[in-house]
């Protein structure tokens, strides 16, 4: 009859407590704040002294703050009262602190520590709810492939030349093969052997004098993947440099990159930064650190050299003669050398390799410097007018000793694991592997974002009020049970979304409202079944029990089909649509649970123990 196992009540209670805990962080508003972090790790300190300096600067400018202190992850967080003061504070601090620090607009959580300790976090908000910039960039894969394959052709020529195999031509055939036509007197076996060592991934076909090097599909895919990965690294470095608190930089599909910069408003500036150019230069080191320090102190720099600085701001003298430039760098991969020490394997193209060979022949034991050169666009106000110029930033990222004679492939050693990874990244980030174009761009102002939040919450609130009012009037006591189930449903959806870190967006609110609709359906099915049983003359308690039993099969079937629609949206939708689908799916699952199990539990609690139940309010 109408019974409900005790352990199920316990389970519901646990679900309720967990839901409340994990939904709770969303109730705490976030503080508009300015986040200050070190521009490059190691060189600058984020400490109490900096906090005092920032606090003093703000006090002088009469910008009231809630707090200025070093918070987790070693960032200085300046909390403010509103977004207008937030912008003023950031504009004030940015020039004062200089380029050693990144000053970013941010939203600081106000969630109490004990909730955070449980891992409870508010849902991240989509750009449509907080304002910001959304870019989608398309990577020109064809150009990346072209560039790489041209380098192959160049290398094949060089290999043949180096191994003294005469040839009449080396050409590319589409994206599939490189065809080398050997001269009449050439040693084909030698050519094949040499090329096999140089290009182990390519398969060879010899027909008469024609040697075809086939490029396997897997190699082409690897080139494409490398190109987009390299572009991603480049973009990440550039975006990190201009201070956005929580940027999203993601690969989408095979050739797109999605960039989201919450809170950022100056799109033009962001686009210039993202599109900035950088390159590398290989230059011989002149003298050592001591000589460089002396040269800087005495202002007596040798005529063939120039002073460069490394990341730690230590001077080093490098030759004015450019040995190899960045566009001659083909690849850089972190790995291990023969002794198992961390290293970076660098590959140059044929021209670069030849120059490197010539240089190393004469300079074994001397040092080689790699300089990272970046053109950074700057906007300055001169005489009240905006002037756009570029600033060139150069820094030495490596200066290792030349161990022996080498050509286009060589290794840089004597690094820690982190240094090797970072150097490989910086070498690669020198240039974009393939040109990129902006294919989508959305800028949402912060006021519109705040407006959207207000509209979304109002809409969900009213959809609840409408539904709850109707149920209370129409089903009385069972209406109340339904209302409790609906409210728990909402709580569970919010809690689950927060737990998995699903981004809340405007369509997400629509998903919430829709999950109310879904939940309504399940509850109506049950309540109508109970009424039907009562009309058929079944005693109240039995009517309730069989109402739940009979309805649950139907609920299961109808929700499974609705779930399919949600899954389709999740699979084929993008961005906000996926948010909508996610809410819908979670809403359907929780509504089955709350309608079938929770409301039955409540109904049993109310009606289960009465001996002589004559009628029920439904």
């Amino acid at each position: 009859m109408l019974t409900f196992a005790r352990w199920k009540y316990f389970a519901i209670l646990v679900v309720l407590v967990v839901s409340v805990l994990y939904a709770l962080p969303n109730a705490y508003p976030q503080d508009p704040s300015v986040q200050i972090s070190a521009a490059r790790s190691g060189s600058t300190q984020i400490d109490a002294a900096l906090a005092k300096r920032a606090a003093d600067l703000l006090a002088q400018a009469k910008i009231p703050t809630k707090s200025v202190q070093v918070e987790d992850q070693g960032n200085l967080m300046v909390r403010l009262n509103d977004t207008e003061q937030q912008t003023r504070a950031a504009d004030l601090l940015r020039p004062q602190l200089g380029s050693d620090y990144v000053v970013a607009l941010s939203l600081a959580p106000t969630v109490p520590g004990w909730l955070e300790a449980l891992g409870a976090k508010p849902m991240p908000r989509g750009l449509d709810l907080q304002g910001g910039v959304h870019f989608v960039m398309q990577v020109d894969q064809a150009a990346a492939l072209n560039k790489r394959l041209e380098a192959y052709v160049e290398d094949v020529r060089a290999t043949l030349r180096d191994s003294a195999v005469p040839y009449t031509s080396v050409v590319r055939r589409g994206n599939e093969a490189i065809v080398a036509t050997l001269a009449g007197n050439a040693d084909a076996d030698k050519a094949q052997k040499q090329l096999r060592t140089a290009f182990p991934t390519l398969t060879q076909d010899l027909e008469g004098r024609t040697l075809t090097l086939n490029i396997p599909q897997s190699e082409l895919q690897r080139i494409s993947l490398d190109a987009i990965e390299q572009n991603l690294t480049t973009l990440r470095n550039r975006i990190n440099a201009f201070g956005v608190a929580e940027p999203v930089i993601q690969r989408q599909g095979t050739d797109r990159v999605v960039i989201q910069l919450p809170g950022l408003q100056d799109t033009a500036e962001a686009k210039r930064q993202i599109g900035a150019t950088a390159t590398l230069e290989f230059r011989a080191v002149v003298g050592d650190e001591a000589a460089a320090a002396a040269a800087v102190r005495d202002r007596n720099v040798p005529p063939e050299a120039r002073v460069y600085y490394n990341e730690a701001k230590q001077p080093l003298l490098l030759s004015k003669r450019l040995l190899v430039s960045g566009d001659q760098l083909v690849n850089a991969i972190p790995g291990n050398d023969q002794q198992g020490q961390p290293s970076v394997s660098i590959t140059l193209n044929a021209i670069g390799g030849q120059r490197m060979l010539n240089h190393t022949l004469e300079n074994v034991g001397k040092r080689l410097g790699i300089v990272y050169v970046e053109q950074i666009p700057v906007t300055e106000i001169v005489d009240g007018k905006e002037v756009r110029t570029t600033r060139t930033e150069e820094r030495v990222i490596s200066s290792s000793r030349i161990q022996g004679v080498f050509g286009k492939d060589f290794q840089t050693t004597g690094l820690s694991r982190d240094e090797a990874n970072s150097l490989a990244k910086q070498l690669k980030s020198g240039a974009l592997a393939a040109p990129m174009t902006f294919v989508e761009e959305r800028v949402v102002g912060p006021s519109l974002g705040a407006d959207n939040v207000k509209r979304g919450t109002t809409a969900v609130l009213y959809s609840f009020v409408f539904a709850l009012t109707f149920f209370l009037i129409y089903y009385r006591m069972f209406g109340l049970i339904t209302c409790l189930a609906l409210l728990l449903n909402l709580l569970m959806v919010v809690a689950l979304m927060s737990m998995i870190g699903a981004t809340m967006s405007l369509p997400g609110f629509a998903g919430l409202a829709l999950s109310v609709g879904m939940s309504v359906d399940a509850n109506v099915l049950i309540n109508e079944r109970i009424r039907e049983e009562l009309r058929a003359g079944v005693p109240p308690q039995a009517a309730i029990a069989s109402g739940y039993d009979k309805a649950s099969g139907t609920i299961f079937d109808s929700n499974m089909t609705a779930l399919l629609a949600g899954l389709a949206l999740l699979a084929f939708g993008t961005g906000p649509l996926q948010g909508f689908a996610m809410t819908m799916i979670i809403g359907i699952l929780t509504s089955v649970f709350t309608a079938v199990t929770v409301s039955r539990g409540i109904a049993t609690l109310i009606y289960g123990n009465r001996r002589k139940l004559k009628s029920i309010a439904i």
Partner: protein
Amino acid sequence: MKIFPLTLLPNDANVNFMKLRWVSIAVAALIMFVAIGAMVTRNFNYALDFTGGNLVEVHLAKPVGLDTVRERLAADGYDSAQVQTYGSGNELLIRLQPREGDSGSAATAHAAEAVMKAVSGADNQAKILRNEFVGPQVGRELALNGLYALLFVVVGFLIYIAFRFEWKFAVAAIITTLHDVIVVAGWFAISGHEFDLTVLAGILSVMGYSINDTIVVFDRVRENFRSMRADPETVLNKSINQTLSRTVITSFVAFLTVFALYLYGGGSLRGMAESQMIGIIIGTLSSIFVACPLLTLGLLKVSKQDLLPKAKDEAALARRP
């Protein structure tokens, strides 16, 4: 009449829906053909999401004449700019196709500049609330993905229902659902209301809702076929009548929730709410007037044999929650 318990429909509803089946199917077919005709002849008013282009939303200190803005934009090289007011009348929503020669990043900047120039006067401060650019390629992919999603849902429904019920039910449910989707899409073609991504999402969720409604009725049909001794038409009729109050109440409340979205959700959610509101009404009507009548026609005619419990079914029923 007793006030409690409240009922929207009489408990002993016994409308002979089956007698009306030729009329109801004819009406449904007619509406569907009108919808298809509208889609073919008028096409959709596709939004930026699908066509690509620029969208700029500005807030003004004072309202301006829309025609002036259009003229100024045309003078600046944007011939077919769509300008509409929004919200309080101080907000403008402007849609532009990029000028010739403008590529992605330049297009956005130029559009914003042109709009600022066109709307602001000496004493009228304009502020850009939103500035979007979507490349035409992205739009095409989105449209294609929408189509894939639709196919995925249809096939998924077919398999699931054929497995849980019977293939005739699956086909009838799919026809009903497609009918609903076509009618909702047709409405957007007829009204010329903007068809954007959220509308597409709305339509997909309408599929979920519509099938949900149909399944509930079919579930009752299955149950009654097993317990009643009567001819199929009586069983179908009885099933519709028994689920009628549930169908109406659910739809009523679901409509209310979506209506709240329509009223308070603001412009960005209006299209979605609109598609869902129409979808709920059509979905309810079709689950009553189309789904079951289809089960009496031609190849889809169900008989008791189709639903006699099979061994496999019994086992499945026993496992049901």
